[in-house]
């Protein structure tokens, strides 16, 4: 479980986030909405542990461990992973090697890459000259290999073409254990649901991801505070019809 209590975060002396309370239970996926510059990426970076985001107040607990000031790699070791919107290029490091770094044990890199339509990119330097959509598939491939318990997605569908949208959507649903229930071994659906352990927090502007991932809760970040929470589809509809400004007025 991820628990964020009364979080206040600064970047370069400027307060970006305040009074943030958030709780993601095992098996839950939350959607984070909000206009540009509202602090969505900052929240994800803070959870991941980027040191330039300074926690001035509050606490982040993951799996019962206080990680408020833990370094990035300790959080990764504890089971937090992230799919970035604009990750850096690492020259000379092949995507294949990056996948090996992500996976703690030996994985079927080729097979995984093929399933993401990404086989041809394994021998290219990580993110070097990748298009927006290619970056997303590369990030998903890495995350899939890493298989963390809490996955943070920063706009996983931005820049993705129509053809690959379904692929991205179903892959995210799959790694978050949000696939449509299957009649496997006659297990009742309720039990399958209960056995879900993966947690997700997804930033989206377009809402496309909602068509693939049944999310449990939606929240709107507005001006650095969580201004509204509720059913993600309802919130998305509200934003679509009335805009963020009106939407945050009507709920909380």
């Amino acid at each position: 479980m991820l628990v964020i209590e009364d979080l206040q975060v600064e970047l370069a002396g400027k307060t970006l986030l305040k009074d943030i309370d958030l709780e993601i239970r095992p098996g839950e996926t939350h959607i984070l909405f909000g206009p540009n510059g509202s602090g969505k990426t900052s929240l994800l970076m803070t959870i991941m542990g980027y040191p330039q985001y300074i926690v001035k107040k509050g606490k982040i607990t993951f799996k019962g461990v206080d990680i408020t000031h833990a370094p990035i790699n300790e959080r990764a070791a504890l089971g937090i992973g992230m799919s970035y919107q604009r990750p850096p290029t690492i020259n000379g490091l092949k995507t294949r090697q990056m996948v090996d770094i992500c996976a703690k044990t030996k994985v079927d890199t080729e097979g995984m890459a093929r399933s993401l339509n990404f086989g041809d990119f394994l021998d290219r330097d990580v993110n070097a000259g990748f298009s927006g959509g290619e970056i997303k598939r590369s990030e998903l491939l890495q995350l899939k290999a890493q298989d963390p318990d809490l996955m943070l997605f920063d706009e996983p569908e931005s820049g993705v073409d129509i053809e690959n949208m379904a692929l991205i959507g179903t892959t995210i649903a799959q790694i978050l254990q949000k696939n449509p229930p299957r009649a496997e071994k006659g297990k009742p659906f309720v039990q399958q649901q209960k056995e879900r352990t993966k947690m997700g927090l997804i930033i989206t502007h377009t809402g496309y991801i909602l068509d693939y991932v049944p999310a449990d809760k939606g929240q709107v970040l507005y001006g650095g505070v969580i201004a509204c929470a509720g059913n993600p589809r309802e919130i998305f509809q509200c934003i679509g019809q009335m805009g963020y400004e009106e939407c945050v007025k009507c709920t909380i």
Partner: protein
Amino acid sequence: MYDLEDLKEKARQALDKKASFGGDLDLNTFDRSFVPHKYLAEEEICAIPQEEQKRLIMSGLDVTGHGRGGTYFQKDTSVIHCQSKEEGIQVIPVTEALKNHDWVKDYFWKLVPVDQDKYTASALLELHDGYVIRALPGSKSVYPIQACLYLDKENLQQNVHNLIIAEEGSELHIITGCATSPHVKRGVHVGISEFFVKKGAKLSFTMIHNWAEEMDVRPRSVARVEEGGIFINNYICMKPVRSIQMYPTTYLVGDNATAMFYSIIVGTPGSYLDIGGRIYLKNRGSRAEIIQRSISNGAHIINRGHLIGEAPEIKAHLECKGLLLKGGIIDSIPQLEGHVEGVDMSHEAAVGKVAQEEINYLMSRGLSEDQATSTIVRGFLSIDIKGLPEALKAEIDRAIDTSNKDSM
């Protein structure tokens, strides 16, 4: 025409001539007398001490000759092993070749001016030995030929002259290492290398330097590439050394000739490395590429790169990237010179540190900060060298990996 007396006369006049770049060395403080070493048969060479074998392997010399098409091994001033296992490839000590083969005289001192500086002069007047490696017309070396110039005697000035000839339509790969015995501290290595890549031939030359902390190194090399010829020149130096100054030059003299220089340099504290590369593109359709990667852990590194486009439809690119890891200086001096319309020349230079953003990215994938840094540095040093056999690529990767582990 070959006129030894004329060469000697020119050399004598240049004996005090300082080099254009790099610190000046007082050669009188070094010993140049011959050091006899016994010639070793194949089985004897495999029996040399493990510690030395390891040092040799790091410079690309595998004493077992496994995966090699031939070997030239010089210790101090003496040739201790020399053989070719490939048909159509000759490996001969240069002193012996000058005595027995008249054709060698068509190449000896034909590209490097003997009076360039005191080092070239000394290399003629007090030549120890060196190798002639020649691929006969149309022959292709399956395995690389290995050459090693080894210093075992303290305070020696080793004078070496190498001739590398790829005849028409041939393909030749050479891996050459320079190293010192573990006990050697001080010395000078002067190495003259003249490369002849004839019509349609392909030559790759990979040089790995493994010197000692008080060694001074002054290679002098010039290459001449004819029509459609390809010359790939790789240079790796990741070990402590007091100073290296070199400025290898290539003349692309035929249409569609190609030269590619790749260098990987890691400088440790106290090292002064002035390393350049110059390519003249004299004919239509020529291509040149110089790619330099240097890391300073406290060294003073000067990277010079100079491309001269003298014919239309040429394409030349210079890429020079430096990483300051633990202090020191990296001074990048890229230079482009276009003489006619229709040249396409570019350069890209950068000096910086390891980006924190990249470290963080890798840390979020589970690596520690140190692991992340060394992964990025390793990536920085891997350049995709085109046109090398797989085995040689693996060899270069191994050399970089080993040195990288040592220097981090």
